[in-house]
């Protein structure tokens, strides 16, 4: 019987290795898999390349992973947000690398990684500093930039409901990067607010088909990042 359910976040992140590339879902705190990230901090893998839209806030979740010096390089579109101090400090000190990618190009590079498309052309960033050093090409009178797919060894994703096959549905704008990150990783690891029986998620409304997911763990009461930031908490507690 296919059963992708893991008993704990700690078990779900087993095998993540030093130097791995990891995609982390979320747009700000919405969709950020905070329990998986904390389990990854406990697990100890370092020298990581993280692909995520932001760099976390306060001293929990992704910001804590960075603060604990596990991250060599960030690939993201918007590394500074409200209450985001950890990344900017390390970046100014030259202690962390940044590859800045326009948000839509980031999404399409991830989607391409999952879809077996090694490269594509986009009008985004043409003529700007973010296109410097990149191939450009004209199609039908418009100039485009060639961009390469991104793939990851692991993805850490948060969703609303999952079943033992790895089928997922999400909650509102917490969906964001989750579905495409599941497709682009060798091993997609997902925390779900609830695990349900196969068939309870109508086949018509599945957002991430189980084929894209390797591990699922139920985290029924996930922490709220903004609440922890407000309380001034730091991970590890």
């Amino acid at each position, binding site marked *: 019987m296919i059963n992708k359910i893991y008993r704990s976040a700690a078990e779900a992140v087993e095998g993540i290795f030093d130097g791995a590339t990891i995609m982390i879902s979320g*747009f*700000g*705190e*919405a*969709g950020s898999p905070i329990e998986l990230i904390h389990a990854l901090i406990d697990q100890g893998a370092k020298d990581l390349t993280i692909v995520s*839209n932001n760099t976390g806030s306060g001293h929990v979740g992704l910001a804590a992973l960075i603060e604990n010096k596990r991250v060599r390089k960030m690939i993201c*579109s*918007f*590394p*500074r*947000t*409200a209450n985001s101090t950890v*990344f*900017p400090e390390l*970046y*100014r000190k030259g202690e962390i690398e*940044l590859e*800045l*990618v*326009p*948000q*839509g*190009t*980031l*999404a*399409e590079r*991830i*989607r391409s990684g999952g879809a077996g498309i090694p490269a594509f052309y*986009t*009008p*985004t*960033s*043409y*003529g*700007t*500093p*973010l296109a410097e050093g990149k191939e450009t090409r004209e199609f039908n009178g418009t100039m485009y930039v060639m961009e390469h797919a991104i793939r990851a060894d692991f993805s850490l994703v948060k969703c609303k409901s999952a079943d033992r096959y790895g089928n997922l549905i*999400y*909650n*509102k*704008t*917490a*969906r*964001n*990067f*989750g*579905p*495409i990150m599941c497709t682009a990783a060798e091993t997609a690891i997902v925390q779900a607010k609830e695990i349900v029986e196969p068939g309870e998620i109508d086949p018509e409304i599945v*957002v991430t088909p189980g084929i894209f997911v390797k591990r699922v763990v139920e985290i029924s009461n996930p922490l*709220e*990042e*903004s609440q922890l930031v407000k309380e001034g908490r730091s991970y590890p507690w």
Partner: protein
Amino acid sequence: MVDKSIKGWSRNEMAQKVALDIQDGAYVNLGIGMPELVADFVPEDREFIYHTENGLLGMGPAPKEGEEDPELINAGKKPVTAIAGASFFHHADSFTMIRGKHIDVCVLGAMQVAENGDLANWSTGEPHAIPAVGGAMDLVAGVKTIYVITQHTTKEGEFKIVKECTYPLTGQKVVDRIYTDLAVIDVKEEGLFVKELGPGITFEYLQEKTGAKLNQY
């Protein structure tokens, strides 16, 4: 310094001008900050559908206090609501809407706009600044019509409408129209054309406050 005796338009008036220029039924993406004001001035006989690039079409107004959902937010990471007839989708689909020219109008702020429509609004290029671009480059590359809403000059009185941008570009030749406190200016192949002057603003005064040549229709 800006001459305080010169009136011009208020921020709300600027936003209202933008709203009046958007057609009924338009799909609209509003940038963070002053562009968000546009939603307060939609004429009663028009319906706009708001897109937010983090995965919602049919964004409604801010929720009542106590009804905020941290998983229902806009691109500025502020709580919002969803109208009846909204839809949620992932980021690749969201930028299909943007890059694929499905969104009619995007209203953005600006650091600088050049006379050829070049826009700079994401970075001052200072060596110690943390660069952050978000979806701005995708929006200007993909949305059909780009409106810029901005004060005509910086607080220090420096030109924002210039011959050539000195800040790093967000996109080349992308701006269609500029709404400032002093005027509404069309960006055309042949240059900048003043569509409307603010209250008490003369063309000559406007030209003085502008770092590029202005034309009259």
